[in-house]
């Protein structure tokens, strides 16, 4: 990378189903808190990038009444659609280009406003798939899950084990939405089926939530904080459309990870990474993500969950915060993963801290069957 760039502050809301706050209030509070967390003022910001989509926000030009709330008034700003990690990517590029030093990145969705699953129908091919009316993101995920499970002999119990791990982890995270400290595999397997094998507890909840991250160039970061979290690698990739790809693999995630690992100089992710925060919108996706990230061989994802390797006290903890199964405010979810990874590096994950984290991975995704992915490698002082 042309410059060293660090995360110097962040904040997130208490994600829940119906927040009883306006979008503007919710966003204002996290942005204000992120500035406070970084110990800087709005005047220190050079650029502001937000992430939201018109369909999910339920209005045209979703960002248009948010300039004031995010602190973009009279700032060089822009808005990307989809996951917050894409906004982070754009903000990073603006800092790398040398024309900006400090950036605020904000992402939000209030799932209680527009049903995010209903919105996914509008991302389908409008000429064929949409008129047929049988597909949405859950239905597609069910097809994906079955194909993956059949190919690698994965059982519903494996999916339930992922759900139990993440949802019980979420119970310790004060910001998470779905908290069930005593959840059992049996309870998950007894939860309501939406599209076989997708159950209520093996998919993410519909959350209202927002989060914000402050990025700074090396010179500024060192001025602001003595605990910067450095961005060491990043990769992003869009895969083929649903009908044109093997949905039982996450090829685009694999490519994004390869780019990020190369940039960060990571050869063996399993041994070099200390923790990973991933956006698993469905329990089976977490197993597929293990494989795409190279934490295990193809088809071996189930072994990691069977052996407890990805538990919070395991060798390679994944989603100690509870992940997307713990809270899923659609556009914010990936950026929350970045925040959780940064918290682990800073040792701020009170109650769910993994000891001795120096290098962490964060993952964001968007689109049906995780068509678009971003991978981030973050490092602390001594990494």
């Amino acid at each position, binding site marked *: 990378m042309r410059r060293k760039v660090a995360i110097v502050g962040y904040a997130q809301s208490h994600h829940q189903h119906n927040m009883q706050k306006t979008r503007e209030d919710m966003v204002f509070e996290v942005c204000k808190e992120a500035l406070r967390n970084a110990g800087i003022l709005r005047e220190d910001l050079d650029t502001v990038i937000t992430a939201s989509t018109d369909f999910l926000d339920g209005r045209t030009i979703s960002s*248009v009444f948010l*300039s004031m709330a995010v602190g973009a008034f009279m700032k060089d700003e822009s808005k990307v659609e989809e996951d917050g990690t894409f906004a982070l990517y754009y903000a990073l590029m603006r800092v790398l*280009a040398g024309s900006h030093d400090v950036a605020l990145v904000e992402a939000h969705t209030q799932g209680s406003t527009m049903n995010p699953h209903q919105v996914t129908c509008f*991302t389908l091919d409008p000429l064929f798939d949409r008129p047929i009316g049988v597909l949405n993101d859950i239905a597609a995920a069910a097809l994906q899950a079955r194909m993956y499970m059949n190919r690698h002999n994965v059982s519903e119990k494996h999916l339930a084990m992922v759900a139990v791990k993440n949802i019980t982890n979420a119970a310790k995270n004060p910001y998470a939405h779905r908290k069930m400290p005593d959840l059992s595999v049996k309870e998950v397997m007894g939860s309501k089926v939406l599209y076989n094998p997708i159950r209520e507890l093996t998919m993410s909840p519909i959350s209202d939530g927002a989060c914000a991250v402050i990025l700074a160039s090396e010179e500024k970061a060192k001025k602001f904080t003595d605990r910067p979290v450095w961005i060491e690698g990043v990769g992003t990739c869009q*895969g083929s459309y649903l009908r044109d*790809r093997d949905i039982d693999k996450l090829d685009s995630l694999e490519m994004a990870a390869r780019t990020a690992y190369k940039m960060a100089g990571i050869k063996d992710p399993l041994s070099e990474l200390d923790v990973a925060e991933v956006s698993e919108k469905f329990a089976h996706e977490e197993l597929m993500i293990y494989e795409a990230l190279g934490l295990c061989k193809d088809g071996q994802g189930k072994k990691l969950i069977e052996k407890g390797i990805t538990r919070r006290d395991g060798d390679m903890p994944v989603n100690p915060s509870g992940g997307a199964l713990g809270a899923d405010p659609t556009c914010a979810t990936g950026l929350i993963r970045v925040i959780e990874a940064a918290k682990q590096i800073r040792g701020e994950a009170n109650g769910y801290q993994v000891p001795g984290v120096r290098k962490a991975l964060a993952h964001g995704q968007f*689109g049906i069957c995780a068509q678009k992915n971003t991978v981030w490698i973050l490092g602390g002082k001594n990494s």
Partner: protein
Amino acid sequence: MKRNVAIIGCGQTKHSSRRRDVNVAELVSEAVYNALEDAKVSLREVDGFVVGNMPGFEGIAQPEQWLGEWVGTAGKPVLRIATGGTTGGSVGQGGYYTVASGLHDVVVAVAWEKHSDSREAGATTGLTHVALGNIFHASAYGLNLKNLVATSVVGAAAGVAVYQATFYMHRSGCGIKHFDMVAAKAKRNAARNKYAHLQWPGCTPEDIAKTEIITYPFRYGHVCPASDGASAIVVAEENIARKKARQPAWFKGLASYSDEENQLQSENMGGVGVTDPSEQRGAWLSAVKAYKMAGIRNPQKEIDMAEIYQPFPSQELIFAERLGLFDENTAWIALEKGETDINGRMPLDPSGGVNATNAIGSSALQRILECALQIMGKAEEHQVPKKVHNAIAHGWGGVTNYTTVTVLGDSPGR
């Protein structure tokens, strides 16, 4: 230490009210492949995409996930940017930052709109959607009454633009006849641009003046059309740019400052209260920053032409002043003198601009693209009859609170 970045290829589609011969994906591909051909770049050499449109108009959410395959996005980074009217400008600037960051070397930036796919294409610009959309959502999802009233009173882009125009008329002394002149010039220029939508060779201000006033001070002939169309640019870093293009159009300066939304002193009444929507401090700040980056001290002398986002003719005058191309309140005098004509001292919108062609998501990218064409000497019939060293491209959007300003030049500057 800044990385020099240039536009090395431009592609756009023919614009019209209804492009029934293509679907959205084919429309987008038309622009992308034209740009790649122009840049002499193969898809394999492209290592990223920046895309954008206003998703509400076609009713497709995240359309690049479906139509990406048509233009070869599979396995590549795709950044989707959408900021309303400025979408195209934001996409073009996204293209710049993507390459300037050093993370990518050759990027395609593409923006589009296909209004005719919309069930309720508005009578004038399709912009009634923006207001209607908000009202429907408001009533369906429980926006409070105050916001509902605020949204409906303002009447979308035309609603904001009439207040803006009357404010400008009041303070500058220009009249409706000057809007007739801008609109007629746009249509005349468009007649020289083979991609433009409303082409009217020899259109005179008198022709425009015959049309009815639809909302004071705008006549029917003042208002832009709703077009189907797409535009794309290929953006590359210095070495590739010099190898591929005889005359690349270099990005010299850019900014996009956000102002407060000009809607009943901001939607929540909690802001500083912009009462004059023609004030446009965001546009002014953007221009100041872009000129500073570009090393331009006197835009009136150093800028050779401008492409201004003018769906309504008053905006060509207002923003030309905000970009520092004319002294305050004098753009209409320059217009009278013919200085803004295609062969004038400071040609404004030689392509016909948004007033003649408005595929909304694409419109602000087209401004960048048209400036690039003028610098590269590829504007054909609407090429201005002088050497273009520096050009400025403008876009506005939102509730007149978003601006994108991009300065392009025939050399990287520094």
